[in-house]
């Protein structure tokens, strides 16, 4: 008795699932199952555009020539990257020094709260520190966009 009831329930469930599937259009093809999907083509499995560029050939002299060219390009890119890294390093090192000295300067200014000249120098130092820090961060950011990771770290922010 129980077995009969269960089979009947299963039958009802199957029929109900079929109706829902048809109504929502939820077919296996639409959900992406079964067929391969080319990345970037949103399920469009048609062939992409033809390769761009010049056929460089596969013979040994041609491959050697290509290897030589790639080596040159890599060296040039490395040089550029190293120059950028050094420039950023120098910039950030200067920024760190500016902010360090600004802290010392403002510590002295704190001992002379009534003297405008000390306060003015402290404010100027704070402004220079902020500008220097942002230029360091910009340099590191630009470099990080070009490369995988940042070459140097920005100096710590000063809250004073």
């Amino acid at each position: 008795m129980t077995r009969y009831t269960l089979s009947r329930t299963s039958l009802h469930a199957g029929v109900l699932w079929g109706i829902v599937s048809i109504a929502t259009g939820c077919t296996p093809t639409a959900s992406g199952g079964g067929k391969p999907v080319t990345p970037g083509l949103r399920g469009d499995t048609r062939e992409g555009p033809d390769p761009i560029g010049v056929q460089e050939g596969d013979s040994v002299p041609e491959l050697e020539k290509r290897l030589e060219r790639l080596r040159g390009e890599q060296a040039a890119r490395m040089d550029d990257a190293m120059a950028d890294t050094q420039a950023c390093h120098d910039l950030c090192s200067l920024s760190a020094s500016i902010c360090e000295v600004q802290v010392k300067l403002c510590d002295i200014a704190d001992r002379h709260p009534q003297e405008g000249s000390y306060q003015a120098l402290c404010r100027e130092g704070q402004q220079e520190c902020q500008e220097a820090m942002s230029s360091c961060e910009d340099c590191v950011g630009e470099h990080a966009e070009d490369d995988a990771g940042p070459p140097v770290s920005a100096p710590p922010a000063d809250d004073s």
Partner: protein
Amino acid sequence: MSSSRIQRIAVLCATLGTVVVAACDDDADAEGEVVHTEVAASTSATPDGTLKTHEIVPSTPSAEGLAYLRAVAAIQREADDQRGAAAVATLQRGLDLEVPAGLPEAEIVQLELASRIAGLLIESDAAAEAKELLVPMLEPSRSVPLDRASAEALIMLGDAATRTGDDALAAGTYARSIRMMSILRQELER
């Protein structure tokens, strides 16, 4: 002239002498006050952040110039293995070397030597000596080379001035070093 009269004259002279000496003492006290006022004035003076700079144009290499730079490099290396007074003496030898004509880079080399000496002096609680060494080289009225070495020397002078309680000199010198480094930073950004 009677002896009592002579005695009176002698007493008068002695009194006069005492007054003069006392007056001299007063003068001495007054001078002391002036000195004290000057010290007070120097600590409460306005900081001078004036910065005059000049660029060092690389010179044409000469045998004398090269020999000088090599000698300084050797002295720097020698000082690397020394400490305290010995290192100061060695570096001072470098500072005393005669600079050949037509070597503008020597100004930077000398600032580097002076900074290093000043750093060692500050470490050994001789900040006043460090200040004495650096002040003539870095006076606000004097143009300094636009170089990181000048900025370092200015920072060192600021530290020495701070240690000796000369806040005006310290603040002015720190401000000048910040200005110097800002110029260098802007040049790097170009």
